[in-house]
Each structure stands twice: as C-alpha cells, then as structure tokens.
C-alpha cells in the first residue's frame, strides 16, 4: 500500500507541473506583469547583490548600474553618457534582456553563476514588451509584514521581581524565614529600552523601544500616553527641542529604512516624518537654536535637516561605516559625528563640509557629546574610557577611566556641569564635565545599559536596559529609587505599566493586575490581599519625591 501511495503522489505532481507549464504560458498572455510584483523579486535574488545604489559609484562592482528600484532600472547605466538598459515595449533592444541571453559565459549575467531560468527571463521580456510598468508598490520594507505561520508560538515569559518586604507570621520556624517575596509578571520578554529623555521642565520622561514610544509622568510614575508604532522598527534616539514643543524620535527598520519623526509634545501626534536614510537612524540632535536637526544613520551618512522646510540641507558621506552618534556645538557651527569606522568627523554645522577627522580610537566610537563651552568633544565607545578632544586642534587632552566595558551613550547635563554615561558593564556614571572626574556610579545588576537621561533638576538619573527596564536612581543618595516596567504592545496596547520601588511598595495600572502574581518562596500568595498592602500610589509618590518610607510588613499566613 505504501508504495502505491508514493507512486500516486508522484503521478499527480508530475501532472500538475505539466499543467502549470501549459497554462502558465497561456495565462501570462493577458496577465499584467509589473516591476514591483514580478520583476523586483527576480532582480533582488540574482542581481542586486552587485547592482545596487550603494555600489553605483564603484563601477568595478556595479558597472555603474543599479537595479534595486524601479527608478534605478529605468535610469540605466550612469555616467557622462547614460545608457538605458530597458526600452519599454522593446525587449529586443533592451540590454537587460540581451545580457541574460548572452552565449559567452564570461559576459553573461549573472556573472559566475547559473543563468536565470527561462521562466524568469520570459517574465522580464514580457514586462518590457507590455510597457515596463511599475505596478502597485508593495510594502516598501520587504519582509516586515510577511510572516510565515510559526510552528512554535511566541511565548510569554514570566518576569520575576524580588520585593523588599518583611514577611511576618509565616507560620514557619524562624530559621526558614529567609524565603523571598516577589512579584511574577507574565509579560516578558520586554523589548530593550533603546532611548530615554526628560523634557526640559523635567516633568516628562519619554521612553523609546521597538514599536513603542511611552510618555511617563516623571513625578507621579504613571504612563500618560503610549504611541504604538510611531515608526516601523525600534526607536534609537529621542531628543527634545529647546525652542519648540517638539520631540525628535529617530529609528527605523534595520538594513531597510531610517526615519526621524517630529512629534508634538502636547498631543503626542506625529507632525512630520523626515525620511531618506536607508538604514536605521541611530542618533538625532537639534541645534541649540532649534533651526536644524542632524540625523546619523547606519547607512553611514549624516543628514542635516532644515526645520523650517524640513528638507535635507546637506548629506555627510565621509564615514565608512555605521554612524552611531551626532552632536552640535553650542553655537551650532560644528557638527560632530561618531562612527564604527573608529573616527569622529567634525563637519560644518550649516553646509556639512568636512572640517576635521579625529582619529585615534582603535575600536568603534559609540557616543559623543560636546561640552557646554564648546571647546571639547567627549568621545567613548567600545574602548570604555572617555576622551576629551580639543575641538580646535584635534588633540586629546584628558582620558577618564571608569567603565569596565563599552559605553553606549554620553550626555551633557542641562546646566553643562555634568556628564552622564551608560555602559554595558551595567552601570550609569556621573562625571564632572569640567574636570573629567568620576563623581558617582549607579549600579544594579549587570544587564547592558543602552541609554541614560538626567532629570533637569539633577535629582534623578534614568537608565534603559537591554532587558527592557527603566531604572531610576536618586542622584544624591545614589540609591535605586524605582524600576519602570511596561508590557510589550502585543500583550497590552493600553497605557499599562508597573512601577517597583526599593521600599517594596509598587503601583500598576488596572489592566496589568491580572497578569501579576505574588509569590513567597515557591508558594503563590493570595494576590488580592497582597496588592492591598503593597500596591500603594501614595507610598510610591512619597518615594519618588525623595521621602523615606518604612519597609512594609506583610503577613504571609493564610
């Protein structure tokens, strides 16, 4: 029986393949063939490796021909005398076809590869003969919304947060009274916190991550607003304008597009979309007069935008690898950019012309800042020390040691007196911006810190971690004050949140209550009673205000 079954299969398969071939040619007669639907996938698979915009400047690779977009294909071979490769309606005159049919293997495309299948070539011929139409443009970000049904379903991971609580009346002998009390929240995994910023008045803390911008009331510890998918992909940087009620939110889809959004800081609506980068925007900065914005991208370029017209004023293409950070000098005349190419480039803040390259780093430069007096660029990165470069002559004055591994962000405080840094050694650090000395280290756990923000009043410092937490320390005492937790959008699209404090009290949005349980050791506790004692807005408020609160006592006995 088994063999019969196998043969039956083969038979029907063969028959259907034959059918396809016969019908395929017929049905194509009337069917429309368009670039976006039919041609682009063929070119992407076989040609775009070499023939892409990025390579046009290098004729050795691309022959000055790009095939990665409809426009590129129609432009043909670039240069003094541009040569078209496609003549709509005339496939027999189109080089795009003849080069695929070339007999000489050394000339035929794709080079050093199997020739295209007859079906593919036929499709290209038909497309040209039918007028080389573009067709409806598909999702520009190919792959983003084309999921296959996954076999394993996305799992919700339990996150555990220990609480500082004194358990009493456990009903257990004293010597086993060591069991830990904690919360289990079924909301993991969280997306990394990749951007953080306090508003100028310090009342708002904005938190950016993949697919989500959240706006926190920095004093009350509640989420005021959630913007889901302001742009596609992760938010890598957030910056408030000093002049206008504007927030710049930068990010994008890796290896596809980069955007900087301008967001109104009262309605939190997206006002404008500065698009153009071909990879994520990793850093955005306003000039201090608010008239310009610089965006640095993994597409290796920095773009300088006019905030009036929102047009590109200049594109800086001097970096040879990812651009990680950008910073304006206080007078706006100099724009500094840091890159994986191990350099810092200083460019004219208006026209983008190159001024100087600061080289000396042996590894990636992740972060830069310019001092308030405009005299120094402070740089750091994979080599964790901070270097003070003289903006005038490019010499390195001071080097400050402290972090144990890569530093991802360095920011100057609002008053210009302090520097704050975030590092993959799991710490935030506070530095004297004039002397370069380390003033304080904030540490809790070892998870990578990607982002840091200092509240303008100098009382709180916030850090964003890889495992998706925002940690807030009291700058004066050096104590960890609170941890801000938000479930990912797929679990809750409402403005849900959970705030844990070092004193054991916490608060959370109503919507999150069902997802949070309490445990004592390995034993689950009756949640309602537990929350009643510990889920206390008033206490959390006191703690965020810097007042001390007694450690809560909780009776475990049922």
């Amino acid at each position, binding site marked *: *029986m*088994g*063999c*019969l079954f196998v*043969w*039956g299969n*083969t*038979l029907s398969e*063969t*028959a259907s393949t*034959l059918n396809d071939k016969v019908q395929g040619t017929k049905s194509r007669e009337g069917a429309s063939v368009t670039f976006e639907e039919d041609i682009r996938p063929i070119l*992407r*698979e076989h040609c*775009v*490796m070499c023939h*892409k915009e990025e390579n046009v400047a290098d004729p050795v690779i691309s022959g000055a021909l790009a095939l*990665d977009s409809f426009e590129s294909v129609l432009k043909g071979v670039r240069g003094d005398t541009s040569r078209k490769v496609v003549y709509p309606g005339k496939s027999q005159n189109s080089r795009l076809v003849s080069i695929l049919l070339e007999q000489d293997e050394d000339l035929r495309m794709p080079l050093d590869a199997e020739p295209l299948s007859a079906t593919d070539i036929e499709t290209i011929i038909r497309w040209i003969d039918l007028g080389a139409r573009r067709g409806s443009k598909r999702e520009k*970000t*190919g*792959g*983003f919304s*084309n*999921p*296959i049904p*996954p*076999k*394993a*379903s*996305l*799992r919700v*991971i339990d996150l555990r947060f220990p609480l500082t609580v004194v358990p009493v009346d456990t009903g257990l002998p004293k010597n086993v009274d060591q069991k830990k009390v904690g919360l289990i929240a079924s909301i*993991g*995994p*969280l*997306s*990394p916190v*990749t951007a953080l910023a306090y508003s100028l008045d310090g009342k708002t803390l904005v938190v950016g991550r*993949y*697919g989500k911008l959240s706006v926190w009331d920095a004093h009350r510890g509640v989420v005021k607003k959630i913007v889901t998918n302001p742009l596609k992909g*992760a938010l*890598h940087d957030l910056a408030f304008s000093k002049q206008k009620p504007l927030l710049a939110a930068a990010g994008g889809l*890796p*290896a*596809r597009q980069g955007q900087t959004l301008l967001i109104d800081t009262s309605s939190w609506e997206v006002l404008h979309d500065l698009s153009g980068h071909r990879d*994520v925007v*990793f850093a955005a900065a306003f000039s201090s007069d608010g008239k310009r914005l610089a965006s640095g991208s*993994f597409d290796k370029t920095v773009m300088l935008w006019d905030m009036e017209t929102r047009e590109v004023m200049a594109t800086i293409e001097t970096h040879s*690898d*990812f651009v990680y950070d950008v910073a304006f000098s206080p007078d706006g005349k100099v724009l500094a950019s840091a890159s*994986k190419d191990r350099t810092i480039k200083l460019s004219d803040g208006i026209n983008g012309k190159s001024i100087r390259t600061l080289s000396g780093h042996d590894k990636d430069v992740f972060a830069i800042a310019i001092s308030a007096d405009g005299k120094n660029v402070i740089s750091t990165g994979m080599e964790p020390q901070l270097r003070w470069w003289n903006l005038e002559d490019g010499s390195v004055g001071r080097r400050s040691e402290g972090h144990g591994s890569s530093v*991802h962000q360095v920011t100057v405080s609002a008053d210009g007196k302090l520097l704050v840094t975030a590092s*993959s050694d799991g710490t935030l650090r506070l530095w004297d911006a004039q002397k370069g000395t380390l003033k304080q280290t904030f540490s809790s756990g070892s998870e*990578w810190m*990607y982002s840091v923000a200092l509240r303008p009043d100098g009382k709180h410092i916030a850090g964003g971690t*890889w495992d998706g937490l925002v940690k807030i320390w009291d700058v004066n005492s050096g104590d960890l004050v609170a941890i801000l937790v938000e479930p*990912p*959008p*797929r679990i809750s699209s409402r403005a849900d949140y959970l705030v844990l404090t070092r004193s054991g009290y916490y608060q959370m949005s109503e919507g999150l209550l069902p997802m949070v349980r309490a445990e004592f050791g390995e034993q689950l506790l009756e949640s309602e009673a537990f929350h009643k004692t510990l889920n206390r807005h008033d206490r959390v408020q006191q703690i965020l205000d810097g007042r001390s609160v007694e450690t809560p006592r909780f009776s475990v006995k049922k």
Partner: protein
Amino acid sequence: MKALSNNRRTLPGSQAFSGNEFWGVILAWIVGVQLVVAGPTDITDIDNISVFPQEMELNRPLDVARFLVSAQYSDGSEKDISSEAHYVSQDTDVVLIKGELAYPVGDGKTAIIVSVADQQWVIPVKVSGVSQPLPASFANEVVPVLTKAGCNQGACHGSQHGKGGFKLSLFGGEPDEDYESIVKEAEGRRIVRSNPQDSLLLLKPTLSIYHGGSRRFSRDSHDYEVILSWLEHGAPAANEIDSSPVRVSVYPQERVLRPNAQQQLVVFAHYEDGTVRDVTQTAQYDSLNEGIAEVGRDGLVEMSGRGASAVMIRYLGKATVSTLTVPYGKIGTKLSFPSNNFVDQKVVERWEELGLVPSELADDATFLRRVFLDTIGTLPEPEVIRDFLASKIPHKRELMIDRLLGLNQTGAWKYQNEWVAFWSVKWGDLLRNSSRKVGEQGMWALHNWIRESLRNNKPVSEMTYELLTATGSTYSNGPANYFRVARSPEDLAETTAQLFLGVRLQCARCHHHPFEKYSQTDYYGMAAFFARVRTKGNQEFGLFGGGQDVYVSNGGEVRHPKKGQVVPPVPLDSDPLETSFDRRRALASWMVGKENVLFARNFVNRFWGYFMGRGLVDPIDDMRDTNPPTNPELLQALAEDFTENGFDLKHLMQTILRSRVYQLSSSPNNSNGGDDRFFSHYLVKRLSAEQLLDALNSATGAVEKFAKLPIEDFDRAIELPDPSVNSYFLQVFGRPPRETTCECERVAVPNISQALHLANSEYVNKKVTDEKGRVAQLISNEKLTDKQRVEELYLVTLSRLPSSDEHQLAHQLINESPSSQEGFQDLLWALCNTKEFMLNH
C-alpha cells in the same frame, strides 16, 4: 543488532512490488517519456535487512530522527533501502512520520513499525521535553545552524572584522561572543524578541531583504525554524543546561557499496549525561575524495567512482569520519599473493576487501634502480646492475637491500657515505636546518649532529630526546639549534607537534581547530612546555661571534589568549605531566614513551610515504581523526613493529623494502589502474631535485662544483648541508628553502622551467658534451664496440639494458650523425630527457 531478533516480525505475503512496477509503466506511458526509475531492490541476492536505529529517543521539539534501512548482499556489500521501506507511527500524537524522518509531537511512548519486503520491525520511541519545551539552546542548536549555513566562515561574518558590521566567531568557536553580537550589539538591532519573524537574523539569510551573502536558508527550512523557535522563547543566552557534546558519531561508520549507490549518513551528538541526539540536519559534511564519493548538505552520499573515500562530519567543534567503499572488482576473493612479511599480509587483506588485484612483481632492473634511489639517492653503477641481473641467488633482493642499508654485512658498508648523506637531506629538511636561520656555524653544528646520528643509526627516540631537551651553545651543540629555528613557545609547539606527532596544530593558535578536536587550550598546553626556554648571546666565538646559548629559565608561562589564564603544560591527547625544572624533559619522555602512539605512527607513515610515493595517511604530516589512513591495520602493525624494535630506522626501512608490495611493478593491470592509495601497483615519483642532479652528473660523467664548498668533499647534491648553497638546477626542481616544517615544501610538481632546463639549457648541454665526460670516456676506450657503448649509456641513465629495438634506433641515430661523438652525445641527451630517467618507477 542484538535487539533485532526480538523486534523482527515476518508478515505473510508481499503485495507492494507488483503494484509498484505496474504504476511505473503507467506513469511512463502518461508523460510520454522514458523514465529512468530506480526500481525496487532485487531481493533475491539479499542476505539480511537491518534497521537503524533500534530505538529512538527524541527530547527536543525541533529534533528530527532518521531511519536507515540497509540490505546486506551475499557478496558483503550493502545498500541503503531506507526510501523503499514503509514507516507507520503507532501514535501520531507522539511522533509523526514524513518519509524516513520521525518528528516529535507530544511527550509519551509509542512505536514505529518499519516494514520492507516481507519483514517488519517494531522500533520503540520515547518522546519527552516536547509538551513543555525548553527553549532552543543558543550554543547547541542555533550556533550549529549558523555554522552549517556558512554565516561564520572566514570569508563572511567569521572574518576578523566581520562583514557588514556584524561579526561572529570563526565556525562558532565562541558562542558567548556570538550571543552578544546577535542579541545585544547595536541596541539589539538584529533580533526583535516581540516580533521574532521581523528579526534581521531571519530576514537577511532568507533573502527577504538584501543580503550580501545571498540566501543561506529558506523560510520553510529546519534552520529557519530552529532560529525562530529560539527567538520565540525570548532568545535566551547559553546556560548551564547547554552542555556541548562530548563526541559525535556516524552511522554507518564504514560500508561497502555498489557502484553509483547512494547512502544516507546519520549523525549523532553524544552528551555527557548520556543523551544522544540525531543531528544529521545540522552537521556539516565534506568528502575527502570527491572523485569517489560526493556528499550533499543533508548527508546523502553518492558514490561517483570506485575506491574508498572518507566523508568528514563536523558538528560543534567535534569531528568524525565515515568510510564508504565501492570495490574495484569482485570482493571477498582470496588472492594468491606470496607474503614476504607482515606488511604484505596487511596489504593483501585490504586488497581483498576492495576487490583489487595487484600488479606483477617489478623486474630486477627496475627494482634495483628503485631501491638504490630510495635508500641512497643514487643510481646503481653499471657493473652492479650487470652482476645483479646475472645473479641466480634466490634472495638477491634481500641481500641487496641489506647491502644498501649496511645490515648483516661482514665487511665494510660500501654505501655508508651515500646513505648518511641522502638521509641527512631529509632530516635537514625536517629540522629546517639553514644558515639563514641559525647562522653558518649553527647550521654546521646541526648538520654534523644529524650525520653523526645517522652514521651510528641512533634510534629516532634518542634523536628526538636530544633535540627536545637540548641546551648550551648553538655553535657546538647541534640539537640546541632546534630552539633557534623555532623561537617562541608557540612556534616550538607547532614545530614539535608537526615534526614528531604529524599533527598540524597551527589553526588552534587562534581558534578551535576546524577539522580537529584540538582547542586553543590544547595548543597552549603544548606551548607551555617551551615557556621557559631562553637564549642569550655567548662569546664562545668572540664578542661578535653571534653564538647563542640555549638555557632554561626558572620562570615563564603562556596564557590563553582569550581567557587570559596561565595554561599548564599538557601534551596532546594526554593527561597533565609531572614536570621538573626543565619541563621539556617531561615532554620528551612522554613523546618517546609507550603511551604516545602518535610518535611511532608519525615516523612509520613518513617513511612509508618516502618509499611508496604516498603515505598511509596523506599528506604524510597531516594525521588527524578526520584524515584516516587507507590501511589502519598496516599503520598500526608498522608502528608496533617500529616501537618494539627500539625506533630503529634501518629496521623500519628494511621491513618496508623487503615487502613484496614495495617491489611491485608500476604498470597497472586491467583492474587496478584507478587505485592510487592502496598500493596495488607501485606509484611512480619524480626524482627529487638532489637525486636528479646527482643522476645527471653520474650519467654524463660531469663533475659539479658547488659554490663555497670544497669539491673534494662536496661533489654530490645529496651532500649539501644548507639550502642556501646556490644552484639554479636544484631550485627549479623543487629543493625546499626549509622555511616551514611542512613536507609539502618539497614540491615535485612539473613545470615548464624544468622541461626547458633539461632540454635546452647550456648547463645540461655542457655536461653532455663534457671533454672528460661520459661520451668522451666511452669513445676514447677503443676496446668498446658501439653496441657496448650504447648499452653503457642505457645503464648509466635508465639502469637497464636497451631492447633490440632501442639498439636499432640508437645505431640509426649514431650513423646519421655528423660524427659518432655527436651521435653518442645526442643519445645521452635524449636518454636524460626521457621520463624513464626522471622518474623512480
């Protein structure tokens, strides 16, 4: 196989095959083409059918296990008939079947019924860890996928600086670093834990978006599913539960197949806790002889020629091989091959397994020329040839071997100088003795030590011990130069491993050896033996004499380059040694000790290669598990014999030379022409540069004067101590510069310069026309007839007498020449340009 009898059931009747053929005909008729259908296996000839594995355990949700059903024929060959068998799961809530593959569905126990022809097997299956799955392991499941897809190879993200800003460790050697690159670098750009399918890590290799490395796997592949599943679980880091496998195994390990057969391999990873996983999907495969076996990404081997080929299998830094053979002829036939010694017995056994029929014995003249060149690098003298050919003594070949080696001699050893000189060249190559490296005096010191050691037939173990533990002046103590040729602990570790163990350790300096078990820890464990060796200038030959003293300092360690820890001295494949002040003594004692089998295997393999034209392991200094010997039993027997006889080189030489295998003709017969590794006929080799120059000089009667060396003592190329002695001829014919320890430095590849130099150069012309040379001597000797002169020329060049046809041609040439002198010169020139002259055949 034990379980077989319990599980085996016989079903009455067999209905499948008649229907099968019927449909084949119908199908061919419908599509209107002649289909080549792999028909059902002919069962008349089958002795036995076996199913592998006999039980199955699946404990990860993405595990796939594979069945192999094999038919054993009466001639000893086997066939993979897995695709003809029928598999039925008894409980599809536990395990599902697709083709020959079993997929776990839910925890539980059940059985799979495997049936083929009229037989049935019940294979118990246990599935666990699937209903409550653990996350896919980054180190154990994700990294192997990246490795197999080629992401972390040297040309791509595994290169020193990565590619496109994304760097992975070479071949996944450092999973912790890879985890950070993938998960945390660039603010987590490469993965999206909340939307896994949008991760760059999946979009790029599936070419859903532009990827410079093209498509590495598709979205419906197992590879994709493994990575997706890991991401779905939140992309957990490597942790304690991810033990890496302790070894990998393959089934079948060896198998005899019929021509053009296909054979699926099944690969298992074995873990410390006893768990075994089928990793056929993610293991990597390389055929070591593509002309015989080709292997695909999925481990399906296709036999494309006759002979035996190993397929190398790699998985997570562990490697093994499967040896697949298609016999050259009918197998299992007893050969009537008279054995001279154990070498012959072992070789014959291998031939019988392979269906090889050996060539005839080489004739006496060929044997004589061969054994002269192989032992003393010199052509036999005409009178020796005549005597040997005329001799009727039955054991004349054995006697000749002993004469050449100076064994069992009553009088003086006639060929001592040549023997010592010839093997000094080889040892000079191996030890890289060169004045460029150790200075003129150092070079002489080492050269004289080599010569003296050979003259006394010093056991190789003693030579090794002296080299490895040498101290003192490099100008007066030859072996001390070992520590000047290679100077750093790393170089010394590499040289020592390659020279004495035949192990190429170099790769493990920077990363886990890709084809070997050796890690960086193993590498630096070897280097640690040399961490305390120092040199300082001495004034033995004056202030500026340049002499060096090698000594052992009381401190010094090597550190693991990545972990930064001090690595203690541990020899390869061994436990740590007790070391005293001079760690090298412990190493040297271990090296030549009984436990270290690599030492003897290395030397017997090298000498087998020198004599037979190819090592049992080849390249002869690349011994590793993944480069198996073509005759393991012979290698083992030779190594044991060498060890038992006190590492006596002459004994080893005598053993190989006396074997009948060594004395076979190089002309293949009808069946063994394709064999180039089982020694069923002699493998011709070009004379080495030194042999050829000396042969040319002795044939033409010219005298060679080498620059800067007195002609009385150094008129032979095999006597030269140093590659810096200038000679265009030697250079063109591949004399090694002694820069590396690799035997590959001596090249025998022909090139156009060689041909032109022999045919056209003034250098060779001068020798042929030398006024005191061969032709001049022959002509001035008026007692000789032209016929005798021709004979003489054949003897000094080709070491044999001319045939009557050759006599005739020679006379014609001489008669047509302007003078008989020119005629003989032309004949000599022509003979020196024959292949027969240039080859040891």
